């Protein structure tokens, strides 16, 4: 089994081990730490928390009536913004929202729209149904432009935060090319985007476009507008090429990083290490780890998890176990991902019982196993032909209402059938379908092909 077994795939999906997300969490490009002016965040809050939405129909006239009836009920200067936010959420077109804003300014002369007002409009201008109905049309971009125009008309100059809101709105609606156009337009007309916007866009480009497009974009931004890629940009790029298993390019990027005068941090190292680990190149991952220590960069939980993953994957479970001790000594508490990773490695080596013992140790330390842990063990026990233990384990999974993953389901069904316990295999099939672990089709195809294989094996006198 050279590849990552699917039982492990969800462990990688776990935010604690998946480097891309944990990499960027402490750094600003993720939405929670948007560099917004504080008003943007505060103002929309009061309304969404209300149990009943104020505006029930996207009809403009209805909304105006509701507004008129409550227009003077609050003296809070943020009040009109909140109303605008809740209307823009359900409005069918941007022009309706803009008209609603005009109506507010007319009714309440004391209210003058500011940045946050228009940011509300911008963040909603791509989510309206009519701009989404045709993804190829320019309607999303024109909705943004419409809002920007009325913004300028109101005497509010778009700033970096405006660019950020617009780009995020366009990207979340899937209009990546428009977002790129818009950021260039912004840079030439108003102000260059800040690093958060830039990195956000680079990240999205990496996901959806060819690497050459991303490089071209970065070069253009650097040459025309003086926006320089920073360490986070490079981390995003390295992560992207590592995911594409293009380690040579990753190494080139690391050398570029040095040339530009950046000192790689923990995140960069973790990313490179992950690149090696996914390709089962444990020794190189260890080298990176050593280099990291030489450079005086403190490894974190992700580093250890990645390394244990890589070592388990390349079959060096003993070293992985040693690392588990090292990390505990350094004061990092192994989490369920660490343990699951290690168990996975043990199971691959056929040491399912040792993995089971590790489960005991894990629970003893107060770390509760997750779905993936159970699936890994079920898979491992079946592979090690410890069917009784596996059945016991299946009982635990079922009791906890946990889902089976494709690999452990398939292995378990095959193990049961091989043992002539077809009825139990059917029961597992029922559970998999009932718990929505797999689609009916996938569950059935596994069962069918297993039974077909069983019949053949019986004919050849191989099975019970």
């Amino acid at each position, binding site marked *: 089994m050279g590849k990552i077994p*699917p039982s492990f795939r969800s462990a990688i999906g776990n935010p604690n081990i998946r480097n891309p997300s944990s990499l960027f969490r402490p750094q600003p490009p993720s939405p929670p730490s948007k560099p917004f002016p504080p008003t943007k965040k505060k103002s929309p809050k009061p309304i969404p928390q209300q149990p009943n939405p104020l505006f029930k129909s996207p009809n403009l006239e209805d909304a105006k009536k509701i507004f008129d009836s409550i227009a003077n009920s609050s003296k809070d200067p943020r009040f009109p913004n909140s109303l605008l936010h809740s209307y823009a959420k359900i409005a069918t077109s941007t022009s309706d929202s803009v008209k609603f804003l005009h109506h507010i300014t007319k009714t309440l002369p004391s209210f003058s729209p500011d940045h946050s007002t228009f940011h509300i409009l911008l963040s909603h201008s791509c989510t309206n149904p009519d701009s989404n109905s045709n993804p190829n049309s320019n309607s999303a971009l024109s909705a943004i432009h419409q809002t920007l125009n009325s913004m300028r008309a109101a005497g509010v100059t778009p700033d970096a935060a405006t660019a950020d809101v617009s780009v995020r709105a366009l990207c979340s609606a899937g209009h990546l090319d428009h977002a790129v156009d818009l950021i260039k337009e912004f840079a030439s007309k108003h102000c260059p985007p800040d690093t958060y916007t830039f990195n956000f866009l680079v990240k999205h480009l990496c996901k959806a476009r060819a690497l050459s497009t991303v490089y071209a974009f970065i070069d253009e931004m650097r040459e025309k507008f003086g926006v320089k890629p920073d360490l986070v940009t490079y981390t995003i790029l390295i992560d992207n090429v590592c995911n594409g298993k293009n380690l040579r390019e990753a190494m080139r990027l690391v050398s570029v990083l040095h040339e530009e005068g950046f000192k790689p941090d923990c995140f960069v190292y973790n990313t490179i290490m992950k690149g090696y680990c996914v390709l089962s190149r444990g020794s190189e991952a260890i080298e990176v780890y050593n280099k990291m220590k030489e450079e005086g960069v403190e490894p974190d939980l992700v580093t250890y998890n990645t390394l244990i993953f890589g070592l388990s994957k390349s079959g060096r479970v003993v070293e992985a176990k040693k690392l588990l001790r090292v990390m505990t000594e350094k004061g990092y508490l192994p989490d369920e991902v660490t343990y699951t990773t290690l168990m996975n490695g043990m199971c691959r080596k056929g040491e399912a019982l040792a993995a089971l013992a590790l489960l005991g140790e894990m629970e003893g330390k107060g770390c509760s196993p997750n779905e993936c842990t159970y699936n890994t063990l079920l898979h491992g026990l079946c592979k090690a032909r410890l069917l009784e233990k596996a059945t016991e384990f299946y009982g635990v999974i079922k009791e906890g209402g946990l889902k089976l993953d494709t*690999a452990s389901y*398939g292995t378990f069904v095959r193990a049961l059938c091989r043992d002539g316990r077809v009825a139990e295999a059917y029961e597992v099939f029922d559970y998999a379908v009932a718990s929505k672990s797999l689609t009916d089709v996938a569950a059935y195809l596994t069962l069918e092909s297993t*039974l*077909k294989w069983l019949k053949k094996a019986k004919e050849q006198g191989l099975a019970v």
Partner: protein
Amino acid sequence: MLPQRMKKAITDNPKKLANLIDLVNLPSTLREFVGQSQISRLGCFMSVWSYIKANNLQDPNNKNVINCDDKLKSILLGKPQVELAELPALIKMHFPKEPK
């Protein structure tokens, strides 16, 4: 590993998936059993299996064997006893491959 191979088989071979989930006009024997005029092979398997469970047709001594009642006999070649392992194959017989 099989699951991956299977996933590949499904994506590579939409026809194989289609003959599992496409609705098929049923022959009269099956029509009586499922109470519908059209059903997919998967749906048919599910309804037969749930019929077995609902009527406790599994042999109490050997759960791997089904004791067919008259209704079940009518669609499973008239056998008095059927092994659970044969079930998918027996049901598949009602869904012949469409000649190209």
